[in-house]
């Protein structure tokens, strides 16, 4: 009876009261039971460490010429030199910080703005809903990359511009998800109860609605973070991001790709680190969403 076997592996019965299972911290702790979550956490933590501590440990400066271009690894230059003769190892250690902060900032901005728009649209039940969502649809109809490059070429390739543009690029997608979740929560009676009490809209959204869409929001945040990392690395790769001599993983791939056969480390290491970061955040997102699916308690069952 294989069906019975698979059912036996899950520990808690649906009929038991699930204590505090789906609330934030409990959710993270429970999701750690999955190996994908643990692997994701280790990968992401490794990248964060490299990006944060790297600048303190780098033996050479970003633009410092230490040898001939495309030199193979040697003592003192563990990953060799790049197309100009700069130290690849130092640039790897220095170049993670921009990817990390820019992708985090862009994600926070995008998810934050999208949440506000989605909450307002989902709660309004009026023309505002249509107006906001149609505007989002217009944004959605452009490919993100085109939109981002357009704005950067118009305004300039400063870090904050990239953050804002990437963030706003995610806004419509987050808004859609949040609106959908909000519409569902708003129909519940505890929201109506707050309305009957006459609570201000701001309080209803912040106290009654927002905590109850926290789980899709967490998943959305992880997903957008993964995409932001890729997008920001791609912008640098296309030469629209940080400008040399600043160190950046995306930029390093662009600069060193011509010498790939001569000295692969200048490309392989940044590629690997970006890949590990996206895989890590993606695994964590997956872990959280699977835990959510498992702990959502059935309502009002005997």
């Amino acid at each position, binding site marked *: 009876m294989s069906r019975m076997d698979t059912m036996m592996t899950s520990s808690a019965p649906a009929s038991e009261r699930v204590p*505090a299972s789906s609330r934030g911290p409990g959710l993270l702790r429970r999701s750690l039971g999955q190996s994908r979550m643990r692997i994701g956490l280790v990968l992401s933590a490794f990248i964060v460490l490299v990006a944060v501590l790297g600048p303190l440990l780098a033996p050479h400066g970003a633009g410092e010429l230490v040898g001939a271009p495309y030199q193979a690894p040697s003592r003192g230059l563990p990953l060799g030199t790049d197309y100009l003769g700069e130290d690849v190892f130092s640039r790897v250690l220095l170049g993670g910080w921009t990817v990390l902060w820019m992708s985090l900032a862009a994600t926070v901005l995008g998810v934050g703005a999208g949440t506000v728009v989605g909450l307002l649209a989902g709660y309004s039940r009026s023309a505002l809903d249509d107006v906001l969502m149609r505007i989002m649809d217009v944004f959605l109809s452009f490919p993100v990359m085109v939109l981002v490059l357009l704005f950067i070429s118009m305004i300039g390739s400063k870090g904050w511009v990239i953050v804002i543009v990437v963030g706003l690029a995610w806004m419509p997608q987050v808004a859609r998800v949040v609106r959908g979740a909000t519409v569902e929560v708003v129909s519940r009676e505890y929201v109506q*109860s707050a309305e009957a009490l006459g609570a201000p809209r701001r309080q209803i959204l912040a106290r009654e609605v927002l905590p109850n869409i926290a789980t899709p929001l967490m998943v959305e945040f992880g997903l957008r973070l993964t995409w932001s990392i890729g997008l920001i690395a791609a912008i640098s790769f296309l030469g629209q991001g940080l400008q040399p001599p600043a160190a950046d993983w995306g930029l390093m791939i662009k600069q060193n790709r011509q010498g790939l056969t001569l000295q692969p480390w200048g490309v392989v290491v940044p590629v690997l680190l970006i890949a590990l970061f996206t895989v890590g955040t993606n695994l964590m997102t997956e872990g959280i969403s699977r835990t959510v699916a498992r702990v959502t308690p059935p309502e009002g069952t005997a």
Partner: protein
Amino acid sequence: MSLVEVQRLRVELAGSGVDIVDEVSFTIDAGEVLGLVGESGSGKTTVGLTLLGDARRGARIAAGKVLIDGEDVLALADEDLRSLRGNAVAYIPQDPSAALNPALSIGRQIEELFEFHRPLASAAEIGARIRETLEEVHLPTEPAFLRRYPHQLSGGQQQRIVIAMAFVLRPQVIVLDEPTTGLDVTTQAQVLRTVRDLCAIHRVAALYVTHDLAVVGNLTHRIAVMYAGRLVEVGTTEQLFREPTHPYTRRLIAAVPLVSECRELVAIPGQAPAPGARPEGCSFHPRCEDALPECERTVPESVSLGPDHEVRCLRASGRRLGVVAGGALVDRLPRDDGAPPLLRVTQVDAFHGKRQILYGVDLELHPRECLAVVGESGSGKTTLARCLVGLHPPRRGVVEFKGAPLSTKARARSAEERRTMQYIFQSPYTSLNPRRSVGAILRFPLDLFFSLSRAETETRVAEVLERVTLSPRTALQYPEQLSGGERQRVAIARALVCRPEVLICDEITSALDVSVQASIVRLLRGLQDDEGLALLFVTHNLALVRTVADRVLTLSQGRIVEVGRVADVLDHPQDPYTQGLIADTPTLAIG
């Protein structure tokens, strides 16, 4: 030999080995309906599912046999189980809307059953059988009806479709898991009649799982009462209603409101113990008024009281029965003291989009009075209640409070107007924010309406919890850690903390067990007596009206068809619609 034989069944939580159900044995003959009655968490649904060879996630059938027509379904291989389910044993779940696939037409869903279980049947045979079954459940048989999707049907029709799907393959055994819980009394009565007729015609052995003894009185031949995973009393319906022996059975019966007389409802104190937390000895003893000292130590054996009547109670062996009496008869005195009405509604018309729900509704609610609003689902009673608190603005008409007209929208009313009228929702499972502690839920209205210091707020929260008989520690808990009855008390506390003058209760007991309903009703009555609250009590259960209300108002299709004193209306209903409602209300009489 009986068609269904369950022998010493034990179901455990997988892993821990804690029993959910233990020592359960019963039989059902062909053509017989057995009622399995118990509170939430008693394990009754778990027992029902074992007839299909199934255990819920996390549960494991540890011991015992379930013989259907002599074959042990617990020993069947997956393949054989699949052909058993739906074919020989059918299941009718509680919520039909969750049981039907919203993306398929109902005709398609019925045909699927034949594809799985009768692949060789011809289209003509299938069509004929479907038409026959639809007729039996009193649904239209034309093809246009079969092309409809579940959302295009009413709740009653959906449940009939599910019943039709259960009967269409002519199973030998049917398990019904509270199939009428979400339905109003009229539909419930019709569905119960249908089930009874079908079981009789097709000689089906049926297990009817429910928490409400009154519902099954007219349907079952025998009843098994379940408590904390064990059968505590089994007997014919007549035996159980005439001489209930186990204290638990007697208390369950005392908790059922009757439409015929106004009785004090007797609640069962405490709540059913969860698996793993069951006390030593007789698991009912902590809640039992007749408990003897040895009840704490000895697990009572089953005692036979006569043919077909068995009970597990130490007192039963020597017939040393205790004295759990039914609730006392009470006379509700009219409270009309000529005071001006607190709430007056005049000529209210309300719409849902283009559809008119209420037609010129008038009502008056006096201080200290309880006015019941009854009607079947779709009669507009909830819409009326929501109009009063401003959750559903009516298109025409006036709602006045103490002579002053109220705005139609809650948000446009003054804080004082919102505070004095409080609304309690039907389901405590959806009316409390799952992410907020009980304390935070109760502080919310306090912060809105009163400017109190932190300490005063905490005192008020503690006071109101005590008023609804919850421990002050509840303030730290979250709704999902509470039982349905406790949640509804929190919802009532949220209304009381505002110090209202009018409470509007929208079917507030319909999602609760009968025993819990009794305690909630007593709480409301107490509030009315002690604090002089006026109550507007929306319900479809006329038996409850008898115990709760002073006056009653019957709504049918958005129009008031009858208003009057409870005794007058229930004893001498003038309107045929009210007469029908009274006739459909389940009673403990044996029919």
